[in-house]
């Protein structure tokens, strides 16, 4: 592990050291920085906090927000809440999968796109909703999917 990563991790751990129940806030902060939580990073956090790597990995694998793999440059999240599902989210998901030739949970081989399914993001009035990175697209019909992908491909 290169030392700059280690330094960063130590800084983050130190920032939360006095916070009760610090493990989850620490993992959030590290993932925010690096996009994912590698096994090495998990082991570093464990030894810093004086807990077992198994405990850290138990928490990482329990919560769907934590990921052990690097995600693509653009993260597509198709909302699978009830309101979105009733208004056709499954068709929208299918359109993304067909366009990018990957399944939900996978990343394209050029590392540009990852498709995910998200839980209700609470924008039910605009169902079906898709998030791409921090942007939210409401009332998304499947036929708008190609132009959206093109927009992010050009970025």
């Amino acid at each position, binding site marked *: 592990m290169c030392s700059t990563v280690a330094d960063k991790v130590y800084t983050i751990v130190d920032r939360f050291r006095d916070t009760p129940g610090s493990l989850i806030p620490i993992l959030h902060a590290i993932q925010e920085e690096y996009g994912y939580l590698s096994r090495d990073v998990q082991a570093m956090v464990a030894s810093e906090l004086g807990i077992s790597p198994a405990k850290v990995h138990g928490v990482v694998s329990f919560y*769907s*927000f934590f990921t052990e793999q690097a995600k693509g440059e653009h993260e597509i999240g198709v909302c699978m809440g009830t309101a979105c599902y009733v208004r056709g989210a499954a068709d929208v998901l299918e359109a993304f999968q067909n366009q990018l030739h990957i399944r939900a949970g996978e990343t394209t081989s050029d590392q540009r796109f990852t498709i995910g399914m998200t839980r209700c993001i*609470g924008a039910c*009035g605009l169902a079906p909703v898709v998030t791409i990175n921090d942007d939210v697209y409401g009332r998304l019909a499947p036929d708008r999917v190609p132009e959206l992908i093109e927009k992010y491909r050009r970025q």
Partner: protein
Amino acid sequence: MYRAHVLVCAGAGCVSSRSRDVRDELVKILGERDISEEVRVIETGCIGTCDLGPVMIVYPEGVFYQKLGLGDVAQIVDEHLIRGRVVERLLYRAPLTEIVTEKMRDLEFFRRQYRIALRNTGVIDPESIEEYIARDGYMALGTVLDGMTPDQVIQEITASGLRGRGGGGFPTGRKWDFAAQAPVGQKYVVCNADEGDPGAFMDRSIIEGDPHSIIEAMAIAGYAIGADQGYVYVRAEYPLAVERFQLALQQAREYGFLGSAILGTDFHFDLDVRVGAGAFVCGEETALLNSIEGNRGEPRPRPPFPAVAGLWGRPTIINNVETYANVPPIIQHGAKWFSKIGTEASRGTKVFAMAGNINNTGLVEVPMGTTLRELIYDIGGGIPGNKRFKAAQTGGPSGGCLTEDHLDTPMDYDTLLELGSMMGSGGLIVMDEDTCMVDIARFFLDFTRDESCGKCNPCRIGTTRMLSILERLVSGEGQQGDIEELEDLAVFIQETSLCGLGQSAPNPVLSTLKNFRSEYEAHIRERRCPAGHCRALISYTIVAETCIGCGICARHCPSNAIVGERRNPYSIVTELCTKCGVCLQECPVQAIQKR
């Protein structure tokens, strides 16, 4: 002194509809016309009319503009704000009657509401503590610290009849009393903002639109039970809520409403935010406590209840966001006032998040006991496309559905339970005739199976078994005896699961079976989906007599499954058809038949 105030909704729904750009454009044009000093622009929390966003309300008149684009802003400034003429084309037009409404207070959507929990959302700037204070904010905390004993506070809450708005409906005053009775020592106050029920977004709106009301209520709760520390557990899916709440905390500390010696008394109380990490089960109170402690969010067996042994083993009360939002008004106006609203056993109001196949989606707050018909037709404006109402799902994955027969029953905790559903957090998903109830049951079981934490077998294995049967049904491979097996499994899972997630997971199946049993039977016996939704059970054909041979369907078909020659009837190659339904949408003469 400003001569006009313009409120721009910055709720999550409107922000997704680019309301921020509309606000920026407004500020820019006001500057260009040199009237920035006369017109004040305020960003508010969710106003509630999510599908009409971005929306803007111009005061003093209270004119409600909706579905605004960037190009509309200049016209509002020039016509309305400069010349005083209302821009009619941007007003709300009712979907069925075409009636145009000018003022916000005259809209049917708002007229029937009674706002207690949402009293400030959509009205004040959530990022300004001054605006909260101007609306009597922190008055209740002052009243409590200035002469009420903790016991009196609990008595007031108990007398109001307030019940938990997050699901179970447990009396709030009693919960506080349990924690107050626990021996003196470290105690905690927790706010459950892990709003996981898909389709419910009232907690998000309250935190984003009126964060100080939660801070004030939690401080009051802390005083009542003798706690000096609180935690707000917010879903990771709600970044804006986290940001606004953090800001509110900072302001409250600066103003002396949090921290040590609050309002000059010897009462100390502070709050911290904990962000969830995407686990539905953490909405269950004991799992939530484990998550705050930094562990896997697995539930704990109860008893001991959190009021006795909660966070880090200490007495803890956990209430939902909407429950807390009701506390300051109860203290301010008295338990008597509150208990006059609603029904005998369900006092006060309830916020419902209406979504799905309904014209006016959004958040509404109505007195308990309002009927489903009033909600869907009077406030919600009915079903789009003149389709028929089929069912409304309440209580999310733990709840059940209400049907046409239930349209006139009052919505309160006990009536909903009797009907095999539950209030839950107030999500109300409306479904029209095209919705397959077997597939909806499958959808919810897929959700609970995925979110089961795996700690206890009945939930982990049982939901997997139920899901595989439901998947069989929707893919046309149902077998005789499947319904009976679903029922057996449901009872078994309900009776033996450790926590509320498992105990309630079978509810959507039992409820749809009770109300729509014939649809299950049609899937098994006739290999037919009566709603025409399940792809494996439907087929598309072209009626040769109606087809004019235009070829539009063939051009749009993504799998090249439609063949034929122009000016002659086309036909669909069944083996290639993916049943996407594009041909049905595109055909100009309705020659495509779905069976």
